[in-house]
């Protein structure tokens, strides 16, 4: 299923990012490195944001799963009215990607607002793809 692959891919990005930042920070700490990214607070902030978003994603999934488990569909209904169980995860997971792209903009391109447009375009495309996936899963067919 496309939506599972999409959200799964974003979750892997988040876990990969947490692992890389934590490894680099802990390597510097364990070996008393002279140069460490712990001197730069933006990495710690991004790592904390990613971990918070993963926790939020877990809580939202639990809430949504319980609502889905308790829900019933009357005979003849083709779909739910809100589609809440299909929309979970998209908002919080894309917030994590926004954090990664912001850090990339600040560290590689010095926070240049000109490059912000490119990263905004990437994020918008991911959001657009996610909305298409959710629509297809919830309503069926293409949203046209």
């Amino acid at each position, binding site marked *: 299923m496309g939506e599972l692959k999409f959200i799964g*891919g974003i979750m*892997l990005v988040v876990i990969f*990012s947490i692992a*890389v930042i934590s490894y680099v920070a802990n390597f510097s700490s364990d*070996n008393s490195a002279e*140069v460490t990214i712990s001197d*730069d607070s933006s990495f710690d902030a991004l790592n904390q944001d990613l971990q918070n978003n993963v926790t939020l994603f877990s809580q939202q999934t639990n809430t949504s799963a319980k609502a889905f488990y308790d829900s019933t569909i009357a005979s003849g209904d083709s779909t739910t009215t809100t589609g809440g169980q299909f929309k979970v995860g998209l908002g919080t997971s894309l917030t994590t990607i926004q954090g990664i792209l912001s850090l990339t903009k600040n560290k590689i391109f010095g926070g240049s607002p000109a490059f912000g447009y490119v990263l905004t375009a990437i994020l918008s495309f991911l959001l657009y793809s996610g909305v298409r996936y959710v629509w297809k899963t919830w309503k069926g067919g293409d949203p046209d």
Partner: protein
Amino acid sequence: MSLYEMPNLSSGMDEAIIGTASAVPGFAPMFLLFVFFVVFLGGMGSQKRRIGTADAPMWAVVSSLSVLMISLALSLREGLIQTEVLGVVVAVTLLSGLWLFTSRNKNEV
């Protein structure tokens, strides 16, 4: 006035490298860029020759992780690498991961 003064090799090879890095500030970033593209282009070329297609996102992750490992080793001594360079290397690694994990088709990772 000489263009470049030889570093003191009697105090160890790391001192010579630090001397080079202090004389030429772009030494460490250029070295890391060289390693990145050697692994990236070499890996892609080798894979393309073997199976006909090259998996660019995967080689981007492999090469950026290689550069990250070298950067961590360089970060143990003062003067070899700056915090800004280490930050860029980590940011490139995260971007490569983003590229890899959002580029898979449904039969892959």
